[in-house]
């Protein structure tokens, strides 16, 4: 890729998109890969690429990983191309969301035959896997780093060429089956589809979107360094474009306020609870995360950004709380009802797996290592922390018990070592250290 070093972010991003579309039009490659760091306009690219393909007479299909991703994409596609007939290939028990139901150029179908008039057909990988015949010229595979190689194998016969779009820094697909049988094979079915495809096809162009439009200037360098050490990216907005202000002055001056103030002023805060070994369901930690959200809603905040230059009040839907485990998510939801703020239950709460690809103004994270005695591979996984700390447009608050540094110190990465397998980077251990060093500068002791 050729980009001017001193080009504006917008120009750099445009150049990257142009290069991708040129390669796609060229037709000499069976596949293209686009690595997209958090919030780098992946969906925009997908919509744009679909448009280009349609304009060129193709009838592209889009393969996404979850139903909500499919719905999101269709809404964007329908808005961008009101004149193009779009098909949604769905399972029998799928019920269209109200937003989707309102679209006039969209058809929901159970089988390809129902969608014969559609120029673009979108579906989940699982649904595409049930389609037995028909081959399309191009497929756009969204979030393809989250698609397992065995799933790719089930859908690959439906298309001749693929545009693989995804974020390599997020969570890898996984399996509950613990086997070392396939390690070292280029076609290991537990690997992500992109890696396997690249292993078997030399000379596939790998593009990279260079600008994160989501992450603020306060976050982009840290996330880039911790999770994308070899392929950095920059923030799309400049210093001062994004800002948070309280609608009220602190009337309690509690540690919650101190943390919120830190986050509002610097974009980061580490709300550190006293050192203690606790189970992951620890009420104090969970309630604190909920209370931070409640307190933020109580006090009210005005968010300024490039889209709302005169500010916009933050609502519960602008806030998310991210956790590592599902039971923690359930407990946080319950804790939100206890905050006393009537809107608090509207705050989104989910695990890293489910937060992938989503975006909020403020994200509160319960650190996966908080209060633990040992650091397992699950809790150290770089992708998990990456997802949690890269969902925000304004600020990220991490809630943790003191002692994570010691924990990291005593648990060097203990991943098994295999022959002829490249070590996976970023290393979760290393990435955790980078994040912790950053957070230490924004620490508020509770």
């Amino acid at each position, binding site marked *: 890729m050729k980009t001017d070093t001193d080009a504006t972010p917008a120009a750099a991003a445009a150049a990257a998109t142009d290069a991708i579309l040129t390669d796609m039009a060229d037709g000499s490659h069976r596949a293209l890969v686009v690595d997209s760091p958090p919030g780098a306009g992946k969906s925009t690219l997908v919509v744009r690429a679909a448009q280009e393909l349609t304009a060129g007479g193709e009838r592209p299909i889009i393969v996404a990983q979850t139903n909500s991703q499919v719905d999101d994409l269709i809404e964007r596609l329908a808005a961008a191309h009101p004149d193009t007939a779009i098909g949604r290939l769905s399972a029998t028990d799928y019920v269209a969301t109200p937003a989707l139901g309102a679209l006039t150029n969209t058809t929901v179908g159970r089988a390809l035959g129902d969608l014969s008039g559609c120029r673009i057909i979108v579906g989940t990988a699982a649904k595409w896997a049930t389609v037995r015949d028909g081959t399309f010229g191009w497929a756009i595979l969204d979030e393809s780093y989250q698609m397992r190689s065995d799933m790719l194998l089930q859908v690959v016969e439906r298309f001749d060429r693929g545009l693989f779009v995804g974020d390599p820094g997020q969570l890898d697909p996984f399996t509950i089956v613990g086997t070392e049988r396939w390690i070292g094979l280029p076609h290991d079915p537990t690997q992500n589809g992109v890696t396997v495809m690249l292993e078997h096809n030399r000379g596939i162009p790998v593009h990279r979107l260079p600008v994160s439009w989501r992450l603020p200037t306060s976050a982009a360098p840290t996330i880039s360094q911790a999770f994308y050490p070899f392929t950095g990216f920059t923030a799309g907005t400049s210093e001062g474009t994004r800002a948070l202000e309280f609608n009220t002055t602190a009337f309690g001056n509690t540690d919650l306020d101190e943390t919120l103030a830190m986050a509002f002023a610097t974009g980061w805060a580490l709300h550190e609870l006293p050192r203690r070994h*606790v*189970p992951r369901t620890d009420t104090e930690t969970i309630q604190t995360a909920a209370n931070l959200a409640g307190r933020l809603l109580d006090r009210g905040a005005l968010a300024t950004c490039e889209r709302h230059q005169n500010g916009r009040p933050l609502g519960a839907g602008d806030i998310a709380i991210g956790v590592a485990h599902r039971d923690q998510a359930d407990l946080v939801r319950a804790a939100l009802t206890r905050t006393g703020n009537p809107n608090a239950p509207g705050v989104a709460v989910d695990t890293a797996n489910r937060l992938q690809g989503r975006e909020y103004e403020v994200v509160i994270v319960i650190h996966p290592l908080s209060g633990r*005695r040992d650091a397992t591979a699950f809790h150290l996984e770089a992708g998990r922390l990456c997802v949690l700390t890269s969902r925000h447009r304004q600020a990220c608050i991490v809630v943790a018990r003191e002692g994570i540094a010691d924990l990291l110190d005593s648990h060097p990465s203990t991943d098994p*070592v295999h*022959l*002829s397998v490249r070590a996976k980077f970023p290393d979760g*251990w290393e990435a955790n250290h980078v994040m912790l060093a950053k957070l230490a500068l924004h620490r508020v002791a509770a």
Partner: protein
Amino acid sequence: MKAPVDDRLDALRGSAKRLDYSARSLAALENNPRCTLRALLDASGSDKAAIAAHAGHPSPFGQSAFALARGNVFETMVKDNGCAELLRLLRETLQLTLPEVGYEDLNDIGGDGRAEVRHDRTKQVLLQAARGNGGGTLFDHPMLCLPVGGHKAFLEPDLVAFRIGGRFHVVEIKSFPIIDGQADPTQVRAATTQACAYIIALRNLLARVGIDKQAVSDTIVLVAPKDFTNRPTAAFVDARKQVAALSRQLARIERIGDLVDLLPEGLTFDLGLDKDKRARRPAEELAEALDQVPATYRPDCLNHCEMAFYCRSRARADSSLDVLGPAVREQFGGIDTTTMVLGLAQGRLTPTQDQVEMAAALRHAARLRAELNVLGGAE
């Protein structure tokens, strides 16, 4: 005023001869790095096996003569006839060119096998190679030296290969098999961690004359029997993470002073060896001394550490949950003992404020188990 750290470490060891770090003991650093007892015993050069045995918990780490013999025979075979097999493998894996066959035997220097002598010679030939004025490609058993905690540790890789215009590669020759491209991950890991010590030592040697660490590759070449044959095969192992991890652990050793400062004055693990090398110190007295140092026992230690059986018995005596392993332990958050778990579960103990939540969960679990036992689900 406290005595200097080194003096205190010497006092801990007592009259016994100092055991230096080896690649094996350095590699062991990555297991349970937080254990104070282990750190102190290692840093003081104490003989852990002898100490554990005298304290009544001999370590079962004998090595089978078969394994030893097999290892030696295989290494010899790989290096026989001017490293014929090895050259074939390195030509395949490292793309060594035809002229790159120069062989330097560093097992002894004109019959002199002393570590210092071999180290001097190693330094000389490796630096020549690095600077491009030596013809050497294969360096057989070079003697490297790494200062660890202010003491010299001599380290001896099986072989270092130097690719002209390229970099040094550590070659490990192991006798566990590579079957259909896969080998036992535990063994690979152990071999890799050892090789990391060599990489670090080699980089250290070059760094002293200003040669960048990039001159030493962090990919190691593992040579091992192919499938069930005696023919060797080679595989790459990406050791980047282990090199980073071991470097961090080595940096920790430098902070041993912090640990030493916490010890009671006059503490020693001296065995009181007599002239026949028999331990004369009363075993209880030794055990008392050991008990004064915190140990972090994990069942995994049984695979690695000579002190593990001692530590396990200590953990059992304390009713520590550590005995049951991390999977069980994790369920109980900050609770440390089985007594406390059961006390809370049965409602016999009143939870502290920290424990309220855990106590409720425990009572729920205990109620469920009681329900089941009443149902007589299992005889």
